[in-house]
């Protein structure tokens, strides 16, 4: 069985030799053109004149396109058809593409794109959630409100009340490989598109729409991405459409890749939020009633903001039973980049809201943070295995393992003793202060748009016994292809090298969902398993008949097929079946069971199951500068029965560091004009090798998923991202150690050194 083995990433041998091909590495035919956008320098305004003469005259320029060239401007939106490829009459954010240049080289296109002279009649720009709220600039008619119980009364009747608000910053994806696409015109108006995308079907759909051809005339291929993190779910549409349009107009292959600065100026990021809360609690910190208000900054276009904001609401409970809760979510339209999918898809923002409440209540009650969290935990299943409590959206919590998992981590990380040791150390250290926090994670798995929970696969067994594997998922580094290949090899009982992983291709598996919502292995693994089992059953039937035995007695293992006391090579049996005129090719399909979701009511079962985890982070801060370090992190994460522990641990480690980066160093700064001033790694600080925790202990909670997922595994892409929340509250703990306990640290995220320093000052000001 290859399932459950720690096999290396399928492309590892290519990666270390520099031979793995990304979209920009694919050789294009001679005469290929390179594209670049000219960008708006105004956050909101009417376009009064477009002078592109200097652009047209620039060296190497073959074509220049603006709104007049495409009277019916193609749309790039994945949802509301509100994203014209190029600005039409108005610009809505600084960085919006206004015109398109095609030139003989990447550099020529980029240099020419700087020569456009666009004049604007500026309009007031809405840049903050407060401005947008005041102007009632929003998506949907009004706020979305979901409630359970009677929060207002419960808060009023509680022994203690508190309220607060804080900011949760956005996050640039910073996939190392920027957005890139290429289009090759084929005969009869067909188009072959290479795209660095998590969603090939969406690229196919949008390109077909732009070219006014059926989807069958467009084929999209993706071998791999150099990172995605949600940033390549919808943000690649513009590049693919631009390439296809110019390829059609010129008959030449076209490629477009954003330079890093353009990428950060043009594309959407994680949604930033302002979260307000009002809590009623008892002396032990038990939450009796809770009201959240989410002010979500969506940017200029709708994109995926509605489901992102929904998911923030759906994670406002995290691991805690909240019998009386009301959540109000405002999806605000601003003149900034259109915020988009990013690992966790709103879940992290919702979750840090309730973790903030726990931290604040612990401070207010002077109770240990972990104990306050614990008294609010969901109950475990009863003795019959039945759920005892439900979420704010009325879904019974059937699989809560928070008590056991947190207890195990508390022990393995030596949390209590370290907490005591840190308190003693802080008492002797006036300048440096340490802090520690343990936070849990419960993350819902399934797309909340229920119809997306489907996947297809196509598997061929060739007459020499080699296997060709294809499915709808895309590879962005997470090791999806290897996990799925392990499933295929296990079904056929063959070694891994027999299975060939092939690029995701809309011509092989149609109508796929984005590789998103952590669903890649869950959905595609099951679809591949179904396809392989169909072929295996045909092979078993054939040899059973040949040897006059029951097909159920045929075994596939060790590269052999065992039948009637004999063992034959898998390749031998494949040849027999081929010669016997039986198909060795099959599709497979999977649709997630059990899920139902009424978004309007905020009620149902949007998730098949939850994935759990917990983290302990210890930090040290310098109270004179606000500088800080993560000294130690202990992670324990639930992957069900892991399909590949090595790949899963990689996901957990990387997610934690990315999550900690979101809440500590990664600060996006827009100036008063709406100009994003942090648009390169020189000014936007993602964690680097020197930021890695000094001690980093990572383990998997390796117990089977109670749901019938592939190999009883659990999704792992997004859930561990939220382990990084522990770093934020460890900083809060360190800041609290600077004071006398009377002032709550009230950090905003990201807790940059500047913000940590200001929070320390508030402690000293008492």
């Amino acid at each position: 069985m290859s399932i459950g083995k720690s096999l290396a990433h399928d492309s590892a041998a290519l990666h270390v030799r520099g031979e793995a091909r990304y979209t920009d590495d694919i050789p294009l035919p001679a005469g290929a053109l390179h594209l670049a956008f000219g960008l708006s320098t105004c956050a909101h305004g009417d376009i009064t004149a477009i002078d592109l003469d200097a652009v047209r005259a620039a060296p190497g320029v073959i074509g220049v396109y603006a709104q007049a060239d495409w009277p019916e401007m193609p749309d790039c939106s994945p949802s509301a058809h509100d994203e014209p490829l190029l600005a039409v009459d108005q610009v809505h954010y600084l960085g919006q593409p206004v015109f398109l240049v095609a030139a003989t080289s990447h550099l020529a296109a980029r240099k020419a794109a700087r020569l456009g002279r666009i004049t604007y009649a500026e309009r007031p720009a809405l840049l903050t959630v407060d401005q947008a709220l005041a102007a009632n600039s929003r998506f949907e008619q009004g706020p979305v409100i979901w409630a359970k119980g009677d929060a207002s009364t419960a808060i009023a009747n509680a022994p203690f009340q508190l309220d607060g608000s804080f900011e949760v910053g956005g996050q640039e994806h910073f996939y190392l490989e920027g957005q890139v696409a290429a289009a090759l015109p084929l005969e009869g108006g067909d188009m072959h598109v290479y795209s660095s995308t998590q969603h090939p079907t969406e690229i196919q759909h949008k390109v077909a729409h732009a070219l006014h051809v059926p989807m069958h005339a467009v084929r999209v291929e993706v071998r791999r991405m150099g990172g995605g993190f949600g940033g390549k779910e919808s943000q690649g549409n513009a590049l693919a459409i631009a390439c296809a349009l110019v390829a059609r107009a010129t008959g030449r292959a076209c490629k477009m890749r954003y330079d890093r600065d353009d990428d950060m100026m043009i594309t959407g990021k994680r949604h930033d939020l302002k979260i307000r809360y009002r809590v009623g609690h008892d002396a032990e910190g038990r939450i009796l009633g809770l009201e959240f208000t989410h002010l979500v900054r969506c940017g200029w276009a709708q994109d995926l903001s509605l489901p992102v904001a929904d998911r923030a609401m759906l994670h406002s409970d995290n691991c805690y039973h909240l019998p009386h809760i009301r959540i109000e979510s405002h999806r605000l339209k601003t003149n900034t980049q259109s915020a988009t999918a990013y690992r966790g898809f709103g879940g992290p923002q919702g979750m840090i809201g309730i973790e903030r409440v726990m931290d604040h209540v612990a401070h207010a009650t002077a109770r240990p943070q972990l104990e306050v969290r614990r008294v609010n935990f969901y109950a475990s299943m009863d003795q019959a295995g039945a759920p005892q409590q439900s979420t704010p959206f009325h879904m019974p919590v059937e699989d809560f393992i928070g008590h056991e998992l947190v207890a195990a981590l508390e022990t393995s990380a030596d949390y209590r003793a370290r907490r005591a040791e840190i308190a003693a150390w802080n008492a002797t250290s006036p300048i440096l202060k340490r802090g520690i926090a343990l936070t849990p994670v419960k993350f819902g798995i399934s797309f909340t748009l229920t119809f997306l929970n489907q996947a297809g696969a196509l598997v061929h067994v060739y007459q020499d016994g080699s296997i060709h594997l294809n499915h709808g998922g895309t590879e962005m580094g997470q090791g999806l292809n290897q996990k799925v290949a392990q499933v295929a090899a296990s079904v056929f009982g063959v070694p891994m090298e027999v299975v060939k992983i092939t690029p995701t291709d809309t011509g092989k598996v149609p109508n796929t969902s984005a590789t998103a919502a952590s669903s890649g292995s869950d959905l595609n693994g099951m679809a591949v398993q179904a396809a392989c089992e169909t072929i295996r059953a045909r092979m078993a039937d054939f040899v059973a008949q040949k040897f006059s035995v029951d097909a159920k007695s045929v075994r596939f293992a060790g590269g052999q097929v065992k039948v009637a006391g004999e063992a034959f090579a898998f390749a031998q049996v494949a040849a027999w079946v081929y010669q016997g005129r039986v198909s060795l090719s099959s599709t497979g399909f999977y649709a997630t069971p059990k899920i139902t979701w009424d978004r309007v009511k905020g009620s149902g079962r949007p998730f098949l199951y939850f994935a759990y985890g917990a983290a302990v982070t210890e930090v040290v801060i310098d109270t004179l500068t606000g500088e800080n370090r993560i000294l130690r992190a202990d992670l324990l994460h639930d992957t069900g029965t892991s399909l590949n522990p090595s790949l899963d641990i990689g996901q957990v480690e990387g997610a934690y560091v990315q999550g900690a980066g979101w809440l500590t160093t990664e600060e996006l700064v827009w100036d008063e004009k709406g100009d994003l001033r942090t648009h390169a790694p020189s000014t936007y600080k993602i964690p680097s090798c020197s930021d890695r925790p000094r001690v980093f202990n990572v383990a998997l909670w390796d117990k089977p998923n109670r749901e019938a997922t592939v190999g009883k595994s659990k999704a792992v892409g997004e859930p561990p991202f939220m382990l990084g929340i522990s770093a934020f509250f460890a900083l809060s703990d360190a800041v609290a150690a600077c004071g006398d306990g009377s002032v709550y640290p009230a950090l905003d995220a990201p807790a940059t050194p500047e913000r940590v320093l200001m929070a320390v000052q508030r402690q000293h000001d008492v």
Partner: protein
Amino acid sequence: MSKIHVTTTVNGDTVEFLAESRDTLLDALRDQLGLTGTKEGCGTGDCGACSVLLDGVLVCSCLVLAAEVQDKQVETVEGLATGAELHPLQRKFIEHAALQCGFCTPGILVAAKALLAQNPDPTESEVRFWLAGNLCRCTGYDKIIRAVMDAGAEMRGAN
């Protein structure tokens, strides 16, 4: 504008190409010489994805002009292995699962090779700070550090 004729050595082979005066070494490697293992991550020398060795010195090839490499020795990720035999760093990166999307991997391997050449027995801190100029968004770096330490140990043992 006339092009500049450049003769240089890349991974031990003498090569010639014609460069525009503004072409970077990264452009020349990828577009003229077909060595696409070296990647562009930022184009401003901040991410390390384009790291190569120039006369043994670690540089960002996006910050070096192609015309500057006349008569120099350039080493890229493609030169690490000897035929079918991987460099110990390459083997250890596979063994420790020290890569995910792989886009930063070539630059990190080249940077790590430069480190071990000048400091065969680095401490973990030295590895962490040496590689701080090579960004990775996927792995969280832990496995990368372990792989470099392990490769260093093996290389010391072999000497």
